[in-house]
C-alpha cells in the first residue's frame, strides 16, 4: 500500500478526546475532519479480498480482524487499533458509521438522522426504530433543559409522524406535564425518568443494528467465554472452583476432585441404616435406622464427624428425616407410626404428631418452617402447624404406602408418589395437579436444589431425570447400579449439583456426571446394600452413605489438594479412621 500518508506515524492522527467516551474507529473520523486532501486515506474495503477465510471452520478474515479491533479499542488501545486497521486495510467502522457515532455523542440529532439513512441498513423498520430512540433522546434532553415547548414540537412534528410505538408516544406526552419529573413510585419500572447518557443511547442503537454495520460490543470476550463454558460442561470431574481459569490450556479436571475414598466410618447404629441427610448448612448429618432411633452427627471444622445426639423414642424403624429450613430442628418418621419433631442443639423431642389410628409414612417441613407435612397410611396427606393443629388434609389417593414427600423450596409444589408408576405434583395454591408417569414401578425420588429437576429411582435399576419446570419432560437416564428388593435412594450433589450419586444393593456407591450421563466412580467399602446417600450441600468433597451393614461411611478426596479451605478436606491416611462416637 503506497501513498504519502504511510509516512505519518499513527500517533499523530490520534487527537485529544471528546467529553464523552471515545468512539471506536476514532482515528478515521479525526482524519476525515482534518482535510479533504487526505481523503484517499479511506481505504477501500472490498479490494482486500472480502471472502478470505482463516482457520478450518470458514471464519472470514474480515470479521476476525474487526472483532480483534473491537477488543483492542475496548481495552483502550486505540493506537494499536488504528494500526491494525491500517495494516490490514480493513476498517473497523465505515466512515459513515464513525460520523454517526460522533454525531450521537455530540448531540447532533439532525445530522445523526441523516447519517442513519446512509449507513447501509436495508430494513426500514430498524431505521424507524432507531430514529425513534434518537428523537426520544432529543426530547428528553430538551425537557431536562426545561425547553418544554421545543420538546413538544419535537414530539409533534418528528416523533409522532414516525408512527412507531404509539404507546410510547402517549407516555412521552405524559412526561411533558412533568418536565422536572422525578416520578418513581407507582409507575411501571419501564419508565425513563430523565434522559440517559448518550453513550447508553449509542449502546442501545448498536444492539439494533445488524452486526455487519456495527459489531456488538465485547464480541471477542463473549466468544472466549462461550468456549470456556463448553469446556467446563464437558469436564466430567468438575467439582471444584479452586482451579484457575487459564486460556492457555483447555479446562480439564482430574478425578481427584470427586470424593472416592472412605475417610471415616460411623458405627453407632445397632441395625440397618436406612436414611441419612446433611443439614442445609452442611454442619450436621442426621441418620435413621431400623433400630428405631435416629442420630444427629456434627461435622467438625477439620472434617471429622462426631456424634451429637441420639434420638430415641420411636417404636418402629425410622424411615425418613427432614431438616427444618433453618436447620435448628428435624422431623423423623417411624414406619406407619408417628412423626417426631426434635431440637437439634438439645436433642429433645419437642412434639409428636399423629392422627388417630392411622400410621404416618413420610414427613417434610414447609419451606417457611411453620408447618409439617406428612403422608398417611390412608393415602392422604395432612398438614399440621407446629403445635399439632391440623391445617389442611389432602384427601384421595395422594400417596402410597412407601413414599417420599417433598415440598419445593418456594413452597409451591407438593411432590409425592401417588400410584405405583406415578408421581404427583400438587400446586398448593391452585390445587391443580400434574403428574409424571413411568412405565416401571417408582421406588423413590429426590428433588434438585433449584426445584427444576426430579430424579426418580425405578424398580428396573434405572434413574430417570425429569425436568419439572413448565412442561414436564424427561431429560436423562442413569444406569449401572443394582436394586432388586429394597428401597435404594439417589441424590444430587457436588459443585452446582452437577453429579448424581446413588446407593446400590451390591454394596457400592455409584456416581455419575449429570450432564453427560457417564458413570464416573463406583466406591467400594460397604459390606451390605447401600440404602441412601447424601452429598454435603456446602462441601462438594464430602459424601455420606448409609448401609445395611449398620454403618455410615464418609467419603472424601483421595489426595491432599494444594489449596485447603476450612471445610471438609480430610487428611490423607493409609488406613481408615474409625469414629468412636463419643456422646456429648
Amino acid at each position, binding site marked *: 500500500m503506497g501513498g504519502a500518508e504511510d509516512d505519518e506515524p499513527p500517533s499523530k492522527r490520534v487527537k485529544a478526546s471528546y467529553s464523552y467516551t471515545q468512539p471506536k474507529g476514532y482515528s478515521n473520523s479525526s482524519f476525515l475532519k482534518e482535510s479533504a486532501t487526505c481523503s484517499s486515506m479511506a481505504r477501500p474495503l472490498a479490494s482486500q479480498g472480502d471472502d478470505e477465510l482463516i482457520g478450518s471452520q470458514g471464519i472470514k478474515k474480515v470479521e476476525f480482524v474487526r472483532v480483534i479491533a473491537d477488543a483492542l479499542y475496548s481495552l483502550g488501545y486505540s493506537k494499536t487499533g488504528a494500526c491494525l486497521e491500517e495494516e490490514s486495510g480493513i476498517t473497523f467502522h465505515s466512515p459513515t458509521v464513525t460520523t454517526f457515532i460522533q454525531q450521537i455523542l455530540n448531540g447532533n440529532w439532525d445530522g445523526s438522522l441523516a447519517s442513519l439513512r446512509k449507513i447501509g441498513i436495508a430494513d426500514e423498520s430498524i431505521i424507524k426504530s432507531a430514529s425513534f430512540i434518537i428523537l426520544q433522546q432529543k426530547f428528553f434532553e430538551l425537557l431536562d433543559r426545561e425547553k418544554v415547548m421545543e420538546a413538544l414540537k419535537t414530539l*409533534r412534528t418528528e416523533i409522532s409522524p414516525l408512527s412507531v410505538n404509539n404507546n410510547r*408516544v*402517549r407516555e412521552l406526552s*405524559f412526561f411533558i406535564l412533568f418536565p422536572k419529573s422525578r416520578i418513581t413510585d407507582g409507575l411501571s419500572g419501564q419508565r425513563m425518568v430523565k434522559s440517559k447518557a448518550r453513550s447508553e443511547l449509542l449502546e442501545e442503537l448498536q444492539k439494533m443494528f445488524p452486526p455487519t454495520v456495527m459489531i456488538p460490543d465485547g464480541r471477542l470476550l463473549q466468544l472466549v467465554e462461550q468456549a470456556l463454558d463448553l469446556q467446563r460442561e464437558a469436564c466430567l470431574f468438575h467439582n471444584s472452583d479452586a482451579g484457575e481459569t487459564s486460556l492457555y490450556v483447555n479446562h480439564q479436571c482430574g478425578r481427584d476432585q470427586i470424593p472416592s475414598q472412605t475417610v471415616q466410618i460411623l458405627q453407632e447404629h445397632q441395625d440397618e441404616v436406612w436414611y441419612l441427610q446433611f443439614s442445609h448448612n452442611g454442619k450436621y448429618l442426621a441418620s435413621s435406622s431400623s433400630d428405631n432411633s435416629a442420630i444427629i452427627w456434627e461435622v467438625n471444622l477439620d472434617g471429622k464427624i462426631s456424634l451429637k445426639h441420639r434420638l430415641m423414642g420411636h417404636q418402629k424403624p425410622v424411615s425418613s428425616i427432614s431438616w427444618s429450613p433453618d436447620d435448628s430442628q428435624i422431623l423423623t418418621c417411624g414406619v406407619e407410626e408417628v412423626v417426631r419433631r426434635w431440637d437439634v442443639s438439645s436433642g429433645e423431642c419437642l412434639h409428636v404428631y399423629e392422627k388417630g389410628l392411622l400410621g404416618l409414612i413420610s414427613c417434610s417441613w414447609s419451606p417457611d418452617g411453620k408447618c409439617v407435612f406428612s403422608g398417611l397410611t390412608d393415602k392422604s396427606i395432612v398438614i399440621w402447624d407446629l403445635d399439632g393443629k391440623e391445617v389442611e388434609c389432602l384427601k384421595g389417593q395422594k400417596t402410597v404406602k412407601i413414599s417420599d414427600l417433598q415440598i419445593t423450596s418456594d413452597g409451591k409444589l407438593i411432590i409425592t408418589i401417588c400410584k405405583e408408576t406415578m408421581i404427583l405434583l400438587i400446586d398448593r395454591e391452585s390445587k391443580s395437579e400434574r403428574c409424571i408417569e413411568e412405565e416401571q414401578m417408582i421406588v423413590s425420588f429426590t428433588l434438585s436444589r433449584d426445584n427444576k429437576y426430579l430424579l426418580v429411582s425405578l424398580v428396573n435399576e434405572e434413574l430417570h431425570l425429569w425436568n419439572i419446570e413448565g412442561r414436564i419432560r424427561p431429560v436423562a437416564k442413569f444406569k449401572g447400579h443394582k436394586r432388586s428388593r429394597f428401597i435404594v435412594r439417589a441424590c444430587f450433589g457436588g459443585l452446582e449439583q452437577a453429579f448424581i450419586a446413588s446407593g446400590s444393593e451390591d454394596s457400592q456407591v455409584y456416581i455419575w456426571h449429570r450432564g453427560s450421563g457417564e458413570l464416573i466412580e463406583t466406591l467400594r467399602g460397604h459390606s451390605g446394600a447401600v440404602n441412601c446417600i447424601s452429598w454435603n450441600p456446602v462441601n462438594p468433597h464430602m459424601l455420606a452413605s448409609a448401609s445395611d451393614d449398620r454403618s455410615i461411611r464418609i467419603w472424601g478426596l483421595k489426595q491432599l489438594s494444594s489449596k485447603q479451605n476450612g471445610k471438609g478436606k480430610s487428611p490423607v491416611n493409609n488406613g481408615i479412621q474409625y469414629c468412636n462416637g463419643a456422646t456429648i
Partner: protein
Amino acid sequence: MDIDPKQYEQIKINDKDSHNIILSYLIHGCYKETLESLVTSTGLKVTNAQLEDMEKRKRILHSALEGNALDAIHLTEQMSPDLLENNKDLLFDLLSLHFVELICSKKQTEALNFGQAKLAPFGKVQKYVGKLEDFMGLLAYVEPEKSPMFHLLSLEYRQHVVDNLNRAILAHAYMPSFSKLERIIQQATVVRQCLSEELGKDVLSPFSLKDFLKRS
C-alpha cells in the same frame, strides 16, 4: 316461538303509572317546557323548587355539551357544593373536556398550560395515569383526529361525560339517577335474557327493543 300478544291484554296499566313514568323521563332529561305542558294536561304536581333545579341542571349540562366545561364545573359547584369534591373521576372527566376543547381549537400552548396546572395533580394517583396519558397523547399529534385517541374528541364521548354528570347531580339531590323508563326497558331485556339462558337458545329469541316496537 314467542309470547302470545294476547297475553298482554290481561295486564291492566294504571294511567297514573304511565304518567309517572313519562314524568320521570322528562325530569331526567330536563325537558322543562314539555314537563310544564304535561303537568297542565294531566294534573300532576310539580313544585317550583323542582322546576328551578331542573333549569339549573339544564344549564350545566348544556354548557358541558357545548364544550364549555369550565362553566359547567362552576355552575355545578354553585348548585351542589361538594359533589365534585367527592367525585374526582367526574371532575377529571370535565376538566379533560375543556382540555380537548383547547386542542380542537389548536391552542396547544394553552392546552399544555392548562394540563400542567389542572390535570397534572391527578397524575400522582395511579388510576388516572392511563387516562392522563391518553389526553396528553392528543397533544403529541399535529392532527389529533388521526391519532389512536381520536374517540376522545368525539361527541359520543362528551355525551357520555354529560350523562355521568347528570346522574351525579341527581344522586346528590337524592333523586333517582336512572329514569323509570330506562329501568323498565333494562328490566325487560335482562329478564328476557335470563329466560333464554334457562330455557335454551331455541325457545325464545333474544329481546330486541326495535323489533318489539315495530311489531306492536
